[in-house]
């Protein structure tokens, strides 16, 4: 089959590889009909997430048709089922899964011992991500082996296009979880940093969950325009002071709830000198992330507020203002998304036409164009917000 394979920093190729097969009775094989490139894939593209190996298949947002089912998954899945594959692999039975903490499943990470060493306590297995999360081959491919498939799937009905369902795999529940973690109240002003696909979903989720106003921060006019289309107020951080504007828009109080959809690769620019400092340290390998947005959030967030962090951070960060965080009594919530905790409801909203996540798709291309599209998405060319690949 064909698959997008990681060969090194900025080196992704559409290779011909051997087909996956059933390895465990709980496995299923999915013939991928659509998959997408995520902001998290860019961190891997840039080799900022440790423990990638040449030969790893990329991709953790995929859907398709079940073509083979292992003996123990047969009660739950059958050949021909249409499924979205959640990016978090989970067993459904361990203590964390019982609590709905699927991204912390205690069984699905096949490199758990290594992960326990690095994280203190390892996390779930993830598709197409680092070997710290199991190093499972990803879904930017023609076929995908789904481990623990009896639990790890979202059944979806026929008659709804792929583009409307695909993002149940990651970014829609990710934006949703980020907003749920804010405990939004009807008087809340919610500020969202980063208007990439995750930010777009977080903006809409915050509105659906009843925020009085959402403020969206980015520098790319097309992404700000997409945020405004949902009803958000836009702030362009390359032209105006985010902190001044936010205080102005909140009567001097600061936003009640702040969502960081930027993560470890904050935009580097001289007018934000800390980004230059972080970039330098990152090049020397003495800091893993560029947490500019997070510093700004901690500073501007209203006392007693909540900071929700869906944006991915890799490791060790410098100059995090814990003094401001502690003294203002701020609550921080974060995590890889517990995808299936939310997808029953989110699928229903899609089916009822309350929301259509397909709004975010700007580019649909064949899988073979994937390597080129990584660059287009990374460089924000051609108004690119979300790329869907067709194997």
């Amino acid at each position, binding site marked *: 089959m064909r*698959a997008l*394979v990681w*060969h090194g*920093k*900025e*080196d*992704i*190729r*559409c*290779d*011909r*590889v*051997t087909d996956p*097969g059933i390895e465990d009775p709980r496995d299923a094989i999915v013939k991928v009909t659509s998959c997408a490139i995520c902001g998290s894939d860019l961190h891997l593209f*840039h080799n900022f997430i440790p423990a990638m*190996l*040449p*030969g790893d*298949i990329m991709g953790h947002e995929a859907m398709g048709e079940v073509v083979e089912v292992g003996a123990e998954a047969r009660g739950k899945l059958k050949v021909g089922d249409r499924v979205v594959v959640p990016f978090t692999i989970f067993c459904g039975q361990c203590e964390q899964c019982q*609590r*709905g903490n699927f991204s912390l499943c205690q069984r699905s990470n*096949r490199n758990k011992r290594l992960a326990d060493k690095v994280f203190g306590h390892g996390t779930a297995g993830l598709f197409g991500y680092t070997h710290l999360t199991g190093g499972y081959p990803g879904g930017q*491919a023609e076929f995908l082996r789904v481990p623990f498939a009896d639990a790890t799937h979202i059944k979806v009905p026929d008659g709804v296009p792929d583009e409307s369902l695909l993002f149940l795999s990651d970014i829609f529940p990710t934006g949703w979880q980020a907003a*749920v973690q804010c405990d939004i109240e009807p008087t809340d002003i919610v500020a969202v940093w980063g208007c990439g696909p995750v930010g777009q979903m977080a903006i*809409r989720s915050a*509105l*659906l*969950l*009843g925020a009085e106003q959402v403020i969206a921060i980015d520098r790319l006019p*097309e*992404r700000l*325009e*997409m945020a*405004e*289309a*949902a*009803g958000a107020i836009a702030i362009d951080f390359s032209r105006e002071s985010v902190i001044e504007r936010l205080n102005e828009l909140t009567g001097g109080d600061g936003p009640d709830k702040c969502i960081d959809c930027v993560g470890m690769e904050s935009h*580097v620019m001289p007018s934000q000198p800390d980004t230059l400092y972080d970039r330098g340290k990152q*090049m020397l390998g003495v800091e893993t992330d560029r947490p500019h947005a997070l510093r700004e959030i901690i500073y501007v967030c209203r006392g007693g507020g909540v900071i929700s962090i869906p944006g991915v951070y890799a490791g060790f960060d410098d100059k995090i203002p814990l003094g401001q965080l502690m003294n203002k009594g701020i609550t921080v*919530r974060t995590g890889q998304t517990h995808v299936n*905790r*939310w997808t*029953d*409801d989110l699928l*229903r*909203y899609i089916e009822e*036409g*309350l*929301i*259509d996540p397909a709004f*975010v798709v*700007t580019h649909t291309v064949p899988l*073979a164009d994937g390597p*080129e599209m990584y660059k*287009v998405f990374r*460089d*924000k*060319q*051609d*108004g690119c917000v979300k790329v869907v690949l067709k194997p």
Partner: protein
Amino acid sequence: MTFIANVARNAGDPKILDAGQSSLGAVDRLAKALGWFSIALGLTELFAARRLSRVLGLNGHGLVRLYGVRELAAGVATLSVDKQAGLWSRVGGDALDIATLMAARGRDNPRRDTVGLALALVLGVTVLDVAATQVLAARANRKRRDPRPSYRDRSGFPRGLRAARDGVSDVRSPKRGGADPVTTAAQ
């Protein structure tokens, strides 16, 4: 490389049969080569400053050592994702090198032939550096379509925000994972 990639695989994981075309373009490879060149030159300037100054007939080797540090920094940046910044700092470094070598080409320097050779080398590399920055600048241009596509109509709420909000508050079920367990526990 493909062989090594396949050795590291888990038993059942797909293995590479044929590698396709890389997302790395010619200019990325050139930048990589220039980055390693910077590192090699930087290390030489830093640790063999005395020898190098003698070969070029320069008096004092402190400056050469300083240039070594500059070269290493440019090398690290050029090898990073931000190769554009690294290449520009290389071009700046090239200008400094050229100025320094020009100044050392005087009649009183018995090594001026060697200096001339070094100058030719630096000029050659400068051409490559400038060419690479130009190709990268062209590639970084965000526009591919003019005018920029408009996303004004992409609200994502087919029935409008009002209806979506009402619908969501109606159907959000607390027991089926609609509510956040942690929040619920706190209430």
